[in-house]
């Protein structure tokens, strides 16, 4: 971002990478695929790089409102400093926080999740599913991230990205507004679960496997971790891939 400003340019959109997208090895792949898509369609984008910091989402869900607001106000200062108008994120938690919780603290932007960007690009005819890997006939089931689905009512955008693949889409029993959490939200990602008889991601992966999918599609780096772990625990990693919508889109277009 700083470099772009130094060159006297302005980005059409800021790509908010998020902590998982920056540091988590698996999520980094998704980050790079989102960049490839942006590059492919010729959208001028920027990232904050080292100027980006945690949105404060896990702090807020864990009950530390102080830390959340400190993070939020610091980030807002950076974003407003660059006169950012539009943001795309690869993480439903960052998406929800910046979109819904930043305006009250002085940061109002048009915020979209990367699956919405992909949907828009498909609708505008700028993005297709050609020139890359064929998903024809493959069974794909999509797991709704809570903060994208129930949290913000976005159920169709990620499905739209899958519909263009000519693949076989199968829904899990609990999907859309009734979708089951992967177990990572509310800061659970960063702690051991409470005592119970099962881990939530195992409950979810069992349901996903019931649809006998080739691919489980995700739209959130935390769901990605939970679902991938679940698939490994069930010894299914040879048969079932867990892929982000961005990865699938990038592959389908040979990016």
């Amino acid at each position, binding site marked *: 971002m700083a470099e772009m400003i130094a060159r006297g340019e302005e980005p059409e959109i800021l790509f908010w990478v998020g902590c998982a997208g920056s540091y988590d090895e698996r999520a980094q792949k998704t980050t790079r695929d989102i960049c490839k898509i942006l590059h492919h369609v010729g959208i001028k984008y920027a990232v904050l790089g080292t100027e980006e910091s945690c949105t404060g989402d*896990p702090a807020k869900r864990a*009950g530390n409102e102080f830390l959340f607001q400190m993070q939020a106000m610091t980030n807002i200062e950076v974003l407003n400093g660059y006169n950012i108008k539009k943001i795309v994120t690869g993480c439903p938690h960052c998406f929800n926080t910046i979109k819904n*919780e930043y305006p009250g603290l002085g940061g109002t932007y048009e915020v979209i999740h990367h699956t919405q960007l992909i949907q828009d690009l498909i609708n505008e005819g700028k993005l297709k599913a050609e020139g890359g890997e064929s998903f024809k006939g493959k069974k794909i089931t999509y797991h709704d991230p809570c903060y994208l689905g129930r*949290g913000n009512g976005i159920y169709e955008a990620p499905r739209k990205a899958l519909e263009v693949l000519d693949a076989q889409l199968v829904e899990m029993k609990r999907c859309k507004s009734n979708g089951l959490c992967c177990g990572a939200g509310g800061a659970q990602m960063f702690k051991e679960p409470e005592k119970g*008889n099962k881990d939530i991601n195992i409950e979810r992966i069992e349901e996903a496997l019931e649809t006998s999918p080739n691919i489980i599609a995700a739209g959130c780096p935390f769901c990605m971790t939970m679902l991938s772990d679940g698939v490994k625990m069930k010894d299914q990693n040879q048969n079932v891939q867990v892929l982000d919508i961005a990865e699938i889109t990038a592959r389908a277009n040979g990016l």
Partner: protein
Amino acid sequence: MISQILFIALTIAAIAFFSFNLKKVIRNIKLGRPADRSDQPSKRLATMLKVAFGQTKMAVRPIPAALHFVVYVGFVIINIEVLEIMIDGIFGTHRIFGGLGSVYNFLIGGFEFLALGVWIACVIFLIRRNILKLKRFIARELTGWPKSDANYILFTEILLMTAFLLMNAADAKLQALGAHYYISAGSFPVSHFLQNLLPANDANLIAIERGCWWFHIIGILAFLNYLPYSKHFHILFAFPNTYFSNLEPKGEFTNMQSVTNEVKVMLDPSFAPPEAEAGRFGAKDVNDLTWVNLMNAYTCTECGRCTSVCPANITGKLLSPRKIMMDTRDRMEEVGKTLDKGGAGFDDGKSLIDDYITREEIWACTSCNACVEACPINIDPLAIITDLRRYAVMEESQAPSSISTMLGNIENNGAPWKYSPADRLNWAKEN
């Protein structure tokens, strides 16, 4: 004449006692912190009409939705009959609306079908709770009183409907016998089949008819007064509860204004915060919650749809969103009762957290909003869980150690993990 006086006295007493208890409930709700829900009145009205009147969120589970709808419609429409009972009771008349002729026949016939529907629905509800033992009705928070409470309500409704139908059967038989005072009015498509069970002489029939009439109206007045002691308040509170429910996206948590002021001072020492009342951060007890949270608790009818979709509960954790609501209400009732006696109130050495809701419960939540989505009348257990966490973290610095580590990482290096901010762009290098 004596019966008229008795009737009027009973009715006034019942309404007075109900108002007395309702006032206490409203007082308890007002113990909560303020929350502004006066915005977007037309959207709020639409939400109430859709969710409470239209019961749209019930439809997710079609069987109980259909049964509940019968009871709901039965309850609302049979109350037209109660209007007649009231007038008859006050003026000593009998079937005052009988003069409406065919319209009256249609109404009474309709009431009878509804009464039968309610009767059957309540029997099925009892079977679901006590014989089929559906999972959401046998959870640990329902043992004891809540289980009995639900059964009492269903039994009462069955008895009321039975009395209504028996009353009609006896009345119709008396009409056929040409008994004095029993004018020919009404059609009795359901109770018609009960006539053979009844004796054939006037005196016994009149005793049954009057007995059922009194039972029906006393039962209704008693039921009204049972509401404040039971989980059944939703028949009234569902309406304000949906009207004042959260209209923002479910993912959005409130920004605490008290924290905003402090953070602004920290970032900009010249900032002068507006005078604010000193209070706790987060909720230790029910008076730290907002009145909306507290109204939610009184509105909860313990159906357990929230708990049945809670990922933590499904996987055997202690957390049950229904229990969060029940605990909040129980604590409010406890405090309210001692306040009535001029006693300790909140200073009784107890609090909502620890004495009612344990740490293990609040830390098991994934904030996935499934409970909020599932509630047929827009109750929000997540808001309470969040406020309890806020208290634990901000007032007590008591969080699971891994959570404290995560918070420390955000504070020190701007990420929940221990990575250097300088490495944030490394993903771009490894292609």
